[in-house]
Structure formats: C-alpha cells, structure tokens
C-alpha cells in the first residue's frame, strides 16, 4: 500500500464524499467557524448541549479538502452523547495521535478516527485534520472562530 493509499483510506474517502451530520440545524446552543485562510477551507460547526453539558446534536457545513471534511464528519458522529469534558479529552487524544507518532493514545477511544493515525507523516496536512476540532473546542469555550495555518 502506498503512502497515499494509507492516508486516503476508504473510511476517509467515504466521509469526504458523503459527509455525515452535514447541514445547518434549526437551532443550536454552540457554534463556531473553522477556517484555514491558507487553504481556503471554511466550515461552520453547530453543537446542541443539554443542561448537563452533554452533546445532543452536532452538525457542520462548509467546504474544504477531503481530510478536513472527513475528520469533521467522523468527529461529530462520535461527539453525540459525550459530556463536554469528554469532548475536550477526545480532542487531546486525537491531537496527540495526529501530531505525535510516539504518543500513547488509546486507539479504541478514537474508533473510526484511528483512520487518521498516519497523518503525522504528512505535516502539512495535520492542520486539515485538526481544523474543526479547534472549531468544536472554541464553540464549547464560547469563541466563534478557529483558525489553523
């Protein structure tokens, strides 16, 4: 398998072609923009948290490369039912996986997101994979724009 095939695994291609949780909801409690001015990638993520701080709905819309779109789609699928503190913990685990080949992240915790485990070999693409994760974190922190360059 070539490095390209390794990066563009079927699950990533699938989620980039047919992103899940795509669209603008009627309402939401948290929202932020994920933007990479160098690439032109631009997304909006919408979250709805209940009173306990658990994610009950999550969706996104926007445009960008396959990596950023698939990462957002796969991420949002996993956020449903997670408390916002668990979301922050998942961010750290994912961040560790995509930036640190020697990290001791728990692949099980990441589920399908493990498809991005080889992306540290493509340093210029890590920012694509992590773009909307920053947006989600910012949305939860009450900020409205995330940017990776």
């Amino acid at each position, binding site marked *: 398998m*070539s490095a*390209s095939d390794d990066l563009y695994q079927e699950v990533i*291609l699938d989620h980039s072609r047919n992103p899940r949780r795509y669209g603008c909801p009627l309402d939401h409690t948290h929202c932020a923009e994920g933007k990479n001015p160098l*690439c032109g990638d631009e997304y909006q993520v919408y979250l709805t948290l209940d009173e306990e701080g658990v994610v009950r709905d999550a969706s996104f819309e926007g445009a960008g*490369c396959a*990596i950023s779109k698939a990462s957002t789609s796969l991420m949002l699928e996993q956020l449903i039912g997670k408390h916002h503190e668990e979301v922050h913990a998942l961010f750290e685990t994912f961040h560790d996986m995509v930036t640190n080949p020697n990290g001791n992240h728990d692949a099980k915790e990441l589920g399908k997101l493990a498809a991005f485990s080889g992306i540290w070999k493509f340093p210029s693409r890590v920012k694509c994979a992590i773009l909307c994760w920053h947006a989600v974190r910012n949305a939860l922190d009450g900020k409205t724009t995330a940017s990776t360059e």
Partner: protein
Amino acid sequence: MSKADTTLLDVRAQFPCLDQKVHGKRLAYLDSAATALKPVYVIDAVAHHYTNESANIHRGVHHLSEKATAAFEAARETVRAHLNAAHAHEVIFTSGTTDSINLVAQSFGQLEIGKGDEILVTEMEHHSNIVPWQLLRERTGAVLRVAPITDNGDVDREAFRAALNERTKLVAFTAVSNALGTVNPVAELTREAHAAGASVLVDAAQAVPVQPIDVQALDCDFLAFSGHKVFGPTGIGVLYGKEGLLEAMPPVKGGGDMILSVTFEKTTYNALPHKFEAGTAHIAGAIGLGRALEFVRGLGYGAIEAHEATLLADALNALQSIDGLKLVGTPANRKGIISFLIDGIHPHDLGTILDQEGVAVRAGHHCAQPVMQHYGVAATARASFSIYNNHDDIDQLVAAIRKAQEIFR
C-alpha cells in the same frame, strides 16, 4: 526529443537539487513559479563569497572589504545591464519583490499620493501588489481601483482604460501572472497609464526568469523582481526606478550606509542607490543574483522561451486529455504556469498525492485570492515549468494525476 530539449540538454545537470528521490520517486519539480532551483554556478558564487571574501562593503579599507564591495557593485552593474537601465544607481537591492513594492508604496506614496488620489491595480495581482497599496490607502486616504480580468484571464483592456483618470497617480501591475500565466502587454499598459499622467510600477517577479526586460523600451517608472525566482538566492531582490523619481523620493529606512553625515541635529542622506539601502546588504545574495542573471544570459532568452513554449504546449495538451481536468484561465498569451482543477479532488488532496509520486506542484490560492474569487474557487493546483523541466516531468505529472483520480474514484 524536441529541439528545446537539445538546446537545454545539459541544464538539468547544473541543478543539484534535481538529483534526488522524493518518497522514492524521481523528482518532477513543477513549482518554479514559487521558487526556482539554483544552479551550481550560483551556489558556488555564494559559497565563494563566504569562503574567500566575507567582509562588509562600502566601509573597510582592507583587502577583503574592497573585494566584497567590488563584487557587490559588479552585481549591481549586471542587473543594470540585464534590465537595460540607464544607470547602475537606478538599481536598488531589496529583500525581494514584496520589499521593492513596499518601498515604492512608502516612499513614492509619501512623495506623490494624497487623499483622493488613485492607485490602479489589476484583478490578477499577487497579494504583494495589493496589500502595500491598501496600507497606503489607510495612511493617506487614497483610493485603490481595480481593473478587472476577463474570464480567459486577460486584463480587460477597455475597463483598464476606463479606470484611468486625472486622479490616477500610480498604476501597478504584473508582467506575468503567477496564478494564471498571463503575459500582460507591459509597454501598452504603460503607455496608456502615462497618457493619463500616472507613474507605472511593473511586478516582474514571474517575468524576469522567462522573458527579456528592457526598462527603457518599456518606459516603466519602477520595476520589481526577486532573485530566488530567477535561479538566485532567497532574500535578495531589486527595485529599478527612474533616476529622477528615486532622487526625489525620501528614504524609508534609516541606518548605516544610507547617510553621508549624521549629527543629532541633522543627517544628510547618501546618494542613490545607497539612500535606499540602509544597513548591511545581503551581500552574498546580490552576488548570487548577479551570477544568476549571467547564467540566464548564458542560456539566452531565445532558448529559454523556445524551451518553455514547447513544454507549455505539450503540458496543455497532456492535461487537457485528462477527463475531469479543468484549466483555470486560458489567456491569449501565456507563460509556463498552469492552474487547474480536478473534478472531485480538492487541490490540497491532489497536491499531497502528487507529492507522494515525486511531483512538486503548488496547491492553494497562490497569494492571489482575488483571482480565485474571480473564478469562484478557494484554491487551484498549479504546475509551473522552468528551463530544467522536460517531457518526463509532464508524463510524471499526468500519471500522478491519474493515480489521484484512481484513489478518489
């Protein structure tokens, strides 16, 4: 093998950077519009300076300083001759095209441009020929006007003429578009700008590597280019300006080398070109740039243009044979810069896959977001060709694009 390949047959061997594998593949370097590779002839000149005559210039009376000064000023003379400028002191060394344009925006802007005065650029400009004018607009209240491009990627000449008026103080445009490859009719645009009473700045960053420039024949008032795009070092560039304008313009940076005398009451500025060259210059860079221009002269623009025209025609043919490939910009007169899109593959994904196949292209907005906005895209892939490229590079590019299409099938 084409005639062009024969003419430049030995050129590849002079670029050591080509002699490597990328991800285990032959390197097809198709990103010369971002920066050109460097020939041994230039690398050696830079190394020679640091090895044998590493000294500051215009100051020391010692042997090494005199040698370095002579080499630095000889480089200036090489640039003068290359551009056919009337005087060597019309050649200001800067850090690059961006620095040169900013110098004009600050200095000429301070001298000539006030509230309500107009600066005209085209829609195809690089950000470095947009943002300095926006900064000037903020400082002065000047107006920045834009001459649109046609969907082919040519300057809309009628709109350009219509935008010129008695308030137009400066017209700044590129000679060759870095995003579309368009070759602009510099002499004609300059004539029209002059007829309206405006001065003219030409961004020649993409032009100097591929076509001869004669500033006196073009009659432009300023011309900017970078060393690194013409096989020279990074961090060195040139601002050419007409003597009378440069004499009248105030310095924008103060420091050593740009003064004749300094007291706390009054400082007298040095003559041209030193007035605009405060601080220790990029001496090795200037020497390297001089050598790079000698290298280009040695090849001859005739051979360069013939080689590039052959490659461009073949590349356009080969790319257009790919289903799902769309060219962005089809200007009437163009150089070897091709922006394109592939159906269903984002340019960044394409760039990554091409890289894995040893093919270096640029993916992004090419620092020309208004061009991207014109075509309604966020980014394109861009392949750009230079003297060391050959038909194998085109074949490798096409094969890599097909591989990407397979992955994204």
